[in-house]
């Protein structure tokens, strides 16, 4: 005892001696880059042994020489070095390191693992990364930020739909979408539209195979594990944020603005007496005042009637026949969205809570389309000795009001000299009113949009309760019960509109614009719009309970952790819809207000699963980890009382190995190499990928039945194979993680291969069997890829930090086997362009009809030897895969003092797309590619001469370029509208500024404030031959991606301003 005291005394003496010489006492606080204190940071004097540890609030006190440097460091943060100098108070802010080696990662089923122990690939996206572009939807905010994750924004509206696919497709016809896990609970995609991205603490992306094996078959496509904020220790913190942003059309298809409305009205057939060889003459004859097509003569500024005399008073609209600049773009609105939210968080040693309220209002680019979302979340946690209880609860209400009309298609069916923007008020403007609107075939877009509405309201409640009981130091139990309830009530309406007798029978075209074949009455007026109403409601209810026992026991050099789990899952849905195809009293939208019968339908589903699982992680000496998983599942989808249990229960398993080379052999560590980990995993997972109730042959009601009391049933068309069972996916994965230059550079490389056997697919069988489809386990696919993640800390100074990351992934797949004798089947699309599954090829494959190419391989296209029109080769030919094979994300963040700047780019490519929009716009003649209407020889063409010889075409002119070439020939050749689907998008960009603390303090209200300007998809670069639209768009969110049409409104860019206040 005496000895210790004397030693201390000696040390004290020593210190004081130094102090009196040239040493000063320095105090300060260590904070992170967001200003939160970093507890337990270490502060040492460079080159000396002097070191202290900061307290919980980051406060430290150390003595140091004026000329010395202090080195600040903390676990999970980068080191910072600063000269002591004259200043006595240091406020240091540390940046989080790119390396999270020592961090703990939440993996499948909520198991926490050290990053070092993990032998498979995962990624973590933090709240900051999610919120760069202030996207109101979580899914879009993940685009380009995780290698291996493809976010398909398949549609664009106030209620956009997305498809999240990890590592490509495995299943041919089953689900390929990633599982969404929210606070540990298995949920569904619904969550993506309802969750407030600001509530998200992080998203762990488990890319598949072994990573998500503990979710059972639900995790076969990988999982996005979303964890919401839980609150932090310390005083109550209040954060208010407002984001206001604008949506603008980023690009429209290329339009022509040279020709006005007209169609093929020229009365003489080629070769007939009277036929004019002058195309300008024929074009003039093709002009009609009421046409939707735009194959009239060239704009000349002359005064021409639009439509007809619209009433007995003789009212007519006569305007200059010349294009209005940007007429189509002006037809759309500028979208505005406003998001307000406030959050509260706080906690003490044993409890914490987080609460948030959000309101978001969106007005879309289609006039009158609106959406609103209001939500609240409350998360809380409390520890009582051995017991910890927590719950997370959120409820969200959302309203949508959207048109069901094809507004876009109506727009492209309007010539560019029509003052569409003045036609918005169809109730008051007699030329905009359907009784007076010029177009015989397509009604006023604003009328259609306003009178055909879908209005629906979503209510979502989702919550989990968790309880953990740490019975013994090495044993704990955990149970989590999660419930999600979604309901939607919907009313679709169509307003009644009855045409006037004048519009129906009398409206006429006066001289000098009339033609012989004119007829009185507006063509579209023959069919009154009788109105209608559809009332629908649907509910989805998911219950998921997980029970786990955690055993942790270290034996010698082995640390062991075993988790035994038991999982129960149930999902029920119900939807009911009733409708009436007409209403009696205008404006009253209730099915009681109708003529005739009600139509209606009901669908109810219920499915259940349970599973047992075990997960063992053993680590030897901290650097060699083996993780083994086993799971045994039972699913109702394959259950029948009389079926053998091996058809509906299935075991599966996997193992992963992680080896930290730099820990095993520290001698290889150098200034260059700081860390090296090798990893590999193998996994076999079962998948109950059969549609619900797929085991039964059904006898549905015949079409139209029952007619009164007459019942009619039909034998179903899909014949289920009697031995249907779950399919199996085998995944192997290997890779390495390396950190270089003192962790400034980190690189992760992964390669994987997934083999999916015995796929439950619906095989097309000959209809002559009496059935059209057979559901059977036959398909086999392979899916492989590589991922590379590079992160670089370019500058890491106290005031200036700059880092960048590159994420690249390559994924491809192949159909190994289908049913014997069957080489392909179709997902969907059109008869002339469809997405397909073809044996031996990647899937989906786009097939379209096309040109007849010259046999010599010159690429010349066959034309008719007499008419000069290109010939259609009607057989559907493969044009390539539709999924993006390469995905590259590039992100960077630069922080200088209180400014920060971040952005993310994404490139995707390696596939093709078909734009039906192109075909539509060729029909209407609005596409710029139809602009060349002068006599011509079809470019790069050949014909077969009388002797049967292929001859390059230098002589045969296209017979009628002003119409027939485009509408009757070019339009039908779908190959014309196939393009590479690559794009580069500036996904999000954000410049923010932290208001200076000195200023903030003066307010005495705020403790912090930030202002930011941001943008999403500010620019997009696409293939120069892609005249049409965003390659991400697709008419379906199912597996058959790759075809777009007018159902997707034009792509938009968004920009806005965000202010944040902390109290």
């Amino acid at each position, binding site marked *: 005892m005496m000895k210790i005291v004397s030693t201390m005394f000696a040390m004290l003496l020593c210190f004081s001696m130094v102090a009196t010489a040239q040493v000063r006492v320095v105090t300060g606080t260590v904070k992170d880059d967001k200003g939160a204190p970093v507890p337990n940071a270490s502060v040492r004097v460079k080159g000396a042994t002097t070191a202290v540890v900061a307290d919980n609030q980051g406060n430290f006190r150390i003595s140091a020489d004026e000329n010395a440097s202090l080195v600040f460091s903390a676990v999970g943060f980068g080191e910072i070095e600063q000269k002591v100098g004259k200043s006595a108070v240091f406020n240091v802010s540390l940046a989080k390191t790119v390396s999270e080696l020592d961090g703990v990662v939440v993996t499948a089923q909520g198991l926490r693992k050290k990053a070092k122990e993990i032998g498979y690939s995962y990624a973590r996206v933090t709240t900051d990364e999610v919120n760069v572009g202030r996207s109101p939807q979580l899914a879009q905010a993940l685009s380009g930020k995780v290698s291996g994750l493809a976010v398909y924004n398949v549609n664009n509206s106030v209620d956009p739909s997305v498809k999240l696919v990890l590592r490509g497709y495995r299943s041919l016809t089953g689900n390929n979408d990633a599982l969404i896990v929210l606070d540990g609970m298995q949920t569904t995609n619904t969550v993506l539209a309802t969750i407030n991205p600001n509530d998200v603490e992080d998203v762990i992306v488990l890319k598949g195979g072994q990573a998500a094996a503990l979710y059972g078959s639900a995790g076969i496509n990988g999982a996005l594990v979303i964890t919401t904020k839980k609150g932090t220790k310390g005083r109550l913190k209040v954060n208010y944020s407002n984001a206001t942003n604008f949506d603008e059309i980023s690009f429209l298809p290329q339009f022509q603005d040279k020709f006005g409305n007209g169609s093929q*009205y*020229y009365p003489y057939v080629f070769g007939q007496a009277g036929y004019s060889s002058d195309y300008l003459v024929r074009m003039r004859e093709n002009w009609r005042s009421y046409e939707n097509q735009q194959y009239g003569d060239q704009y000349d500024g002359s005064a021409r009637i639009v439509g007809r005399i619209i009433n007995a008073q003789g009212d007519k609209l006569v305007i200059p026949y010349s294009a209005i600049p940007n007429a189509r773009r002006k037809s759309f609105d500028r979208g505005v969205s406003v998001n307000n939210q406030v959050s509260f968080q706080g906690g003490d040693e044993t409890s914490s809570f987080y609460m948030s309220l959000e309101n978001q209002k969106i007005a879309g680019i289609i006039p009158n389309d609106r959406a609103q979302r209001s939500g609240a979340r409350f998360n809380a946690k409390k520890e009582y000795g051995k017991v910890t209880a927590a719950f997370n609860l959120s409820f969200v209400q959302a309203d949508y009001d959207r048109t069901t009309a094809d507004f876009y298609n109506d727009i492209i069916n309007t010539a560019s000299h029509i003052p569409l923007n003045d036609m918005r008020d169809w109730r008051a403007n007699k030329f905009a009113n359907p009784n007076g609107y010029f177009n015989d*075939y397509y009604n006023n877009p604003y009328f259609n949009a306003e009178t055909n509405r879908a209005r629906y309201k979503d209510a979502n409640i989702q919550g989990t309760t968790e309880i953990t009981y740490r*019975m*013994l130091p090495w*044993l704990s139990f955990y149970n989590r019960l999660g419930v999600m309830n979604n309901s939607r009530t919907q009313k679709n309406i169509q307003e009644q509109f009855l045409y006037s007798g004048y519009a129906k*029978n009398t409206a006429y075209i006066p001289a000098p614009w009339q033609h012989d*074949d004119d*007829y009185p009455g507006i*063509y579209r007026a*023959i069919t*009154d719009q*009788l109105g209608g109403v559809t009332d629908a409601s649907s509910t989805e209810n998911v219950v998921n309970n997980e029970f786990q*026992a955690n055993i942790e026991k270290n034996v010698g050099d082995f640390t062991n952790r075993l988790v035994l789990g*038991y999982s129960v899952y149930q999902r029920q849905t119900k939807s009911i819809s009733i409708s009436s*195809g007409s209403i009696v009293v205008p404006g009253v939208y209730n099915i009681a207000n109708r003529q005739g*019968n009600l*139509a209606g339908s009901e*669908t*109810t589903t*219920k499915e259940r699963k*349970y599973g047992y699982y075990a997960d063992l992680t053993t680590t030897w000496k901290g650097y060699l980890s083996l993780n083994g998983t086993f799971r045994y599942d*039972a699913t*109702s*989808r394959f259950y029948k009382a009389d079926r053998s*249990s091996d058809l509906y229960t299935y075991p599966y398993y996997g193992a992963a190995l992680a080896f930290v080379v730099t820990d095993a052999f520290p001698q290889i560590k150098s200034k260059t190499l700081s860390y090296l980990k090798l990893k590999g995993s193998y996994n076999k997972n079962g998948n109950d990928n059969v549609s619900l*109730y797929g085991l039964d042959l*059904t*006898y*549905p*009601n*015949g*079409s*139209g*039945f029952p*007619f*009164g*009391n007459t*019942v*009619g*049933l*039909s*034998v*179903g068309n899909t*014949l289920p*194979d009697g031995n249907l069972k779950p399919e199996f996916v085998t995944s192997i994965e290997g890779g390495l993680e390396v950190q270089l230059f003192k962790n400034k550079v980190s690189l992760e490389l992964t390669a994987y291969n997934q083999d999916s056997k015995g796929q439950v697919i619906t*095989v*097309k*069988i*000959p209809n*002559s*069997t*009496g*059935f*059209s489809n057979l559901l059977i386990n036959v398909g086999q696919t392979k899916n492989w890829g590589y991922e590379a993640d590079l992160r670089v800390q370019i500058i890491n100074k106290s005031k200036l930090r700059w880092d960048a990351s590159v994420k690249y992934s390559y994924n491809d797949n192949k159909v190994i086997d289908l049913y014997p*004798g069957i080489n*392909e089947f179709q997902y969907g699309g059109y008869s002339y362009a469809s997405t397909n599954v073809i044996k031996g090829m990647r899937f989906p494959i786009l097939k379209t009809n096309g040109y007849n190419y010259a046999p010599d391989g010159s690429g010349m296209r066959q034309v008719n030897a007499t008419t000069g029109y290109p010939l*259609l080769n009607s057989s559907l030919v493969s044009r390539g895969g539709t999924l993006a094979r390469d995905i590259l994300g590039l992100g960077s963040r630069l922080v200088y003092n209180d400014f920060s700047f971040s952005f993310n780019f994404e490139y995707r490519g390696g596939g093709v797309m078909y734009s039906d929009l192109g075909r539509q716009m060729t029909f209407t003649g609005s596409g710029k590619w139809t602009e060349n209407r002068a006599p011509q020889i079809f470019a790069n063409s050949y014909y077969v001469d009388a002797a049967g010889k292929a001859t390059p075409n230098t002589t045969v002119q296209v017979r009628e370029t002003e119409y027939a070439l485009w*509408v*009757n020939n070019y339009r039908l050749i779908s190959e014309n509208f196939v393009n590479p689907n690559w794009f580069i998008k500036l996904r999000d960009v954000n410049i923010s500024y932290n208001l200076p603390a000195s200023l903030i303090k003066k307010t005495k209200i705020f403790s912090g404030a930030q202002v930011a300007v941001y943008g999403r998809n500010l620019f997009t670069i696409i293939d120069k031959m892609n005249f049409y639209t965003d390659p991400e768009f697709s008419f379906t969110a199912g597996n058959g991606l790759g075809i777009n049409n007018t159902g997707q409104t034009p792509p938009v860019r968004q920009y806005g301003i965000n202010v944040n206040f902390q109290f």
Partner: protein
Amino acid sequence: MKIKSLYILGIAALIGVGCKKSFLDVNTNPNSLPSATPAFVIANALNVTSTNMVGLNELGSYWSGQWTQSNGYILATTYFSYVFTNGDFNYWDGFYDNLEDYQYVINGADGAGQPYFKGPAKVMKAFVYQHLVDLYGNVPFTEALKGSAVLAPKFDDQKAVYESLITLIDDGMNDIKNNAFESAYASSDIMFKGSQSKWLQFANSLKLRILNHQSRISGRDGYIVAEVNKIVSSGAGWLSTTDAGLNPGYVAAAGQLNPVYNNWGYSETGAKRANNNFPRLTQFLVNSLKATNDTFRLKRYGYANGGENGSNPGVSVNAEVITNYTGVPFGISSGFLPAGCCALGPSLLVKGELGRPYVIMTAAETLLSLAELKQRFPAVTLSGTAQSYYEDGVRQAFRLVGSSTTNANTLLASGVDNCDFTASTNKLSAIAYQKWLALCNFNGVEAWTEYRKTRLPNTPQSVQVVNSDRPLRLFYPLTEFGSNGANVSAQGTIDVFKTKIFWDVN
């Protein structure tokens, strides 16, 4: 250690409180029925047979030169330029789907205690197969409709199928004779309401149609005469004053209208369908009727230019004078806007008459078939003469479209070639022409079949086609080719302009 094992036991117990098998027993489809009975299946099957005919009759009406389209929209090149592939005109899938339902009834009627549905199902099966052969030639028959037992049915020779159909109908007629309907289930028979005699008449009419199709094949006389004589001796008769039409109970509700009315007429609420603008009577039809002074029927086949007057159903907007009836040259793509030519007339469409039965076979057709058989094969034991069957057939054709016997008699005595039997220079051509008219608006596909068999009447080629090729059949559909490729390929290369159906001996 003791405590430890206790805990482990506890965990095991907790996990062991797993689920019983019954937890999974929620896999019975609550949305679609898991079983059916023949009575319900045949009701739908009959209705589907009629709805399957709608598109097919449209095609036949075009290709037999009765209808074409106005120029209110782009003409489909498939119909009017004959540019079509094995992806177009797939009636096959619908037919076989329908056949499966009949097969279900045939297989299950006895077991379900409803044997009286077996016969009608067999006759209807033959009816559908007759169309399949007429459109595609060789088709799967003996190995077809066996589900997973035969996943790649081989094709049977078309002539053999035709012969099997006669046997199948005979078999069905025996079943009908031996199993009287239980009245409780008569409503499931949406065609004849359980009338045995009408089913037998229909069956015989179908046999006459099948036999008559083969009447130009040389060396077939013996077979045809023998079969016709069997029909005569059966004594059950044929459709001679009534038509075979079915009505499941059409009402003014979406999806429950007469399908023709629904397609080309009006909605359940009386709004005119946009499709009403498209089908138009051909110039050939209109001018032929004008030339033979058959204006009674002209005014029934079409409305005067301008169409039906919505507020005066059944009557044209414009005066129903001959000059107001304009036909459209077949396949022309300009110059004939919808209001300038004859829309489908009151024989087919009258606003509000949404509950007319869907006619699948007419007395007129049967009688004119008898006329042809008697004319070609005097040896048949039919009691009437070719002329008497012809004249009865024309009278029935007038009745069918809503014109009077008096008008029919006027035409029959007009002295006009191809109308007045006695005055006609070529009796077979008169029969063919009158049959073509009798089928107009009601049975386009049969009109096309008759045209292919006789090449009569000599309707003009489509304006859009430069050569004289006309489709003589359809391609085997892509769906069958994709899933039963070897058997389809075994039928050889199909050229729709050259590969003829076996009864087409031109």
